[in-house]
Every structure is written in C-alpha cells, then in structure tokens.
C-alpha cells in the first residue's frame, strides 16, 4: 500500500511510469472483479484497460486524499454496468463457456463447484451482483460501496441481502450444510 501512495505522488508529479506501479498493484483485483461481474475473460481484460485508461486521464483531477482502490472499483463498476446497458443484457449473461476457465492444479470437484458458483452468480441481476461481489469477494464495507456507487448504505445492505438470498436459491454447496 505504501508503494501505491508513493506511486500516486510520483504520478501527480509528472512521472508517467509510476502509473505502471499502480496498474501492477490493481490489475489482478480489478480484472477478477470484472470477471466475476461479466463472466468473460477477454471482456474483463478489455474493461480493465478502459478502467485504467480513464483512471490515467482523471487522476490529475483528483485530490490527494483520494481512496484510490475504491475509486478504481467505481470506475470498473461503471464500465461493466455501462457495457451491460449497451448490450441490453442487464439481467443475464448469454455466454456460459466453461472451457474458458483457467484453473490449474484444482480437483475436478473444485472445477465443477467453481463453474456452478459462477453460473449462479451470473444469473443475478447486475445491481445485486455488483454489491454481492464487492462485499463478499472484494471485502468492501457497505458504507464504502454506498460511496462508490452513489447510493444509500441501506440500499447497499438491501442489495447484498437480496443478492445473498437469490444466490442461495440458485446454488447450494455440495456439503449442503449452509442452509
């Protein structure tokens, strides 16, 4: 994290290469976040590029106390939602190609579980999916998500709760002890 702060300072001072440090730090979480939202490997990489390009352009306009990570997630969310809107596929993602999964060293059962979890997640409406992934996968607090998305904390809590309930209807772990 200290590396980020230093990179941010250097970038603001005109060191363009410092942006590479920021991208190296955040490319994995941002791409995975977009992947969980879209279910598409290539698309998540394209949207990540868009996200970093917009961040590059907008960073000079931000203040020094910018919460960089939350801000990048907000841009990524807007890009993903914007893409869904453009494609008019708000609720369901049509592609479901498990051959694109890259899982190395995992057992067959884990691969199957991962595919089922992902399939259930992708069936959730986009706004529920966004809040659920931000909270449960990326660990953001409700308050942080509210600020990120520009909605009330109660609205976030409602979406996480509703997303959790909807996900539970779509997926039960093989152990079955969750319910």
């Amino acid at each position, binding site marked *: 994290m200290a590396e980020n702060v230093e990179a941010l300072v250097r970038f603001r001072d005109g060191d*363009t290469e410092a942006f*590479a440090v920021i*991208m*190296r730090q955040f*490319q*994995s979480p941002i*791409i*995975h976040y977009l*992947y*969980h939202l879209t279910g598409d*490997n290539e698309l*998540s*990489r394209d949207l*990540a*590029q868009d996200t*970093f*390009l917009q961040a*590059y*352009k907008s960073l*000079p*306009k*931000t*203040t020094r106390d910018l919460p960089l990570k939350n801000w990048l997630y907000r841009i990524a969310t807007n890009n993903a939602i914007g893409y869904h809107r453009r494609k008019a596929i708000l609720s369901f993602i049509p592609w479901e190609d498990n051959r694109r*999964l*890259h*899982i190395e060293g995992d057992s067959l059962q*884990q*691969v199957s*579980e*991962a595919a089922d*979890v*992902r399939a259930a*997640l992708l069936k959730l409406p986009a706004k529920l999916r966004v809040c659920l*992934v931000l*909270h*449960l*996968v990326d660990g953001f*607090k*409700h*308050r942080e998500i*509210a*600020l990120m998305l*520009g*909605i*009330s*904390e*109660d*609205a976030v*809590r*409602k979406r*996480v*709760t509703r997303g*959790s309930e909807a*996900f*539970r209807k779509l*997926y039960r*772990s093989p152990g079955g*002890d*969750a*319910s």
Partner: protein
Amino acid sequence: MNCKRVRFLLTSYISGELTDTERSLVEQHLTGCSGCRTTLASFRALSSEFAVLPSIPLNTEIIDRTFSRIAADRVNRFPTNHWLQAAFIAAAAIAIVAVCVVLFALPARAPGDILASALANTRNLQSFRVSNTAYEKDQDSNEWIATWYKDTEYAGLGNFHVKAKFLPSLTTNTENEVWETWETIVYNHTGYYYYGSTPAAYSVEELNKGFSDVITDLQQPADALKILDEIDKLPDETIDGVACSHYHGLVDMEDWVQQHMIDYKASRPDASPALLLMIEDMWRRKKITYDYWIGKNNDIIHQWSMVLGDAANAVEKNKEIFRYYGFNEEITIAPPVDAQGNLLPGWKTQPGS
C-alpha cells in the same frame, strides 16, 4: 427487533458493521429464532463458497496495452504546434483546477445523506408555511387539479402547532365526502379547533398523524428515502426564486409492495386470498418516484413531490407536490379564543380522546 429487520442487518452483522446496540439486539433475537439462525449460517457460508471462484492468469499485456492506448490518445488529442500545446495545457490546467475546486472542495456525500440532512434541517426550523397541490388523471386521461391545502402554517418546534387551510377540492365530491373550505388549528396535540364545515370524521390522532407525516416531521419524504432504489441528481431548478438542487428517486417496488401488503391485510382481515393476489399484482405493476428540491444556499427542502404511475407504459396517474416557504418568519399560532377563554364566533372544538 423482528425477523425482517434482523435479516436486513445480518450481512452487516457478519462483516462487523453494526453498532453495539444493533449487534446486541440482533444477537438477542438470534438466540430465540431458529429461522434467522439458519439464514445467518446460510449467509456466512457464502464467503467460502465464493472463494472457489476461478482465478485467471495475468501478465503484463494489460499494462502494455493500456500504455499503448494512452500514447495513442495523446497523439490524437494534443495539438502539434508548440504554442498551441502551451495554450492547450494552460487551458486544461485551469479547467482541472476549476473542476477540483467544484468537485473536491467538499467531501463527497451520497444523495440519500444529502436529502436526509436537508429534511432534518427543515424539520428543525422554528416555522414555515406549506401548500399542497395534487394532480390526478381519470380513466380517460383527463387531468384534475386540486389544491388540498394552502398557506398552512407551522410554528413551534416540538409543540406541533399547525394552522391548516383546506380548500374545496375538485376531486373529492364523491357521494361520501363533500368538502368545503375549512380551517383547523391543532395545538399541543391535545385537541383541535375548526372553522367551516365539520371535519368531525377525523380524530385528533388522525390529524396529528396526517400533519406530522407531511408537514411538521416530513415523515413521508423521509421514509421514502429508505425505499428509494436509485437517486439521481438532475439539473438545478428554481423554486420560488431560489436556486435548488433537484434529486429524483425511484421506489423499490418490491419493498413497497411487501410493506403495503402487511398494512392492507391488517386493514382488511376479511380479504380473500384471490383479492390479495389481485391487489398485490396490481401494485407490482406500479411505479412510484419521488423528487426533492433542496436550496443550494440553505440546505432546506423547498419542494418535494410523489408521482404514481404504471410501470409498463410510464403513464403518470397521480402527482402530489408539497411546497415549503416562509422559513423562520414570525408565525404565531394560538387557540381561537378571546381574553376570557371563550371560542371566537364560528369556531368549534374537538378535544382529544
């Protein structure tokens, strides 16, 4: 704390985001409720289930491609002439400074917080006036306009002094209800005084609630914030000559229907399951929006409105507008009695039950 509230708080409970009091109330409920304990276990399991989500391999291609696009963008955007470049950079710098001053001088606040704060500011004023106008369309889409009350005065923070002027309405001349102009004063919650046609059908409790919902506590627009799904900021507008920020929110109908079905069932315990289904279906097809106009300089609600329509064809059916003005002006509201304590001519009184 009931099950619905507890389940709403469970995800915050798991992530440690509740206050000590909330956490204690949730735990107290969980001790005696197996249903909520099951839901808690189900929610807790989600994190580990999501942990199996696949990861995708990374390399430097994203960074390389992004930098290529940054470079391409620079070539396309910047003028080649050095003087033009300097002018361009200077202009950009000024624009960036302006944007920073406007956008980042103040901490970012969610629209819901801004609205809640403005409602609280208005509620805490010493006095104000309020007028209401309602628009309603009949089946032939003819628009009726009614002003229910005009220049109603509120004064006396915490004491609930209201002087309302109700006007004849175009839309309420039904067989059961014929309204004429009447005036009422509710003083200290304890009873009310009225002038004109008798509003005896109303108890003082009903009047208290009606006024506090809309006028003194702005309860209805504040409650609406809890069920608004999205709040958008629209272009500024001027209300009564005051520049106002305009916010527009769409009600989450799922929540609205759930709450209203509980109220409806309570008010109609004899309703058949078929009727309940029909009512629920009808409500689900509705769309409700709220708009708020907040003074840019005083952070006070100048107007709010509610629009009810059909979700499918976006037709507006009912619209109610509540306009607030005369803030903190000298308004005195007193019982309509003379020096000896006798009612002034024409006035009647209705004590509280």
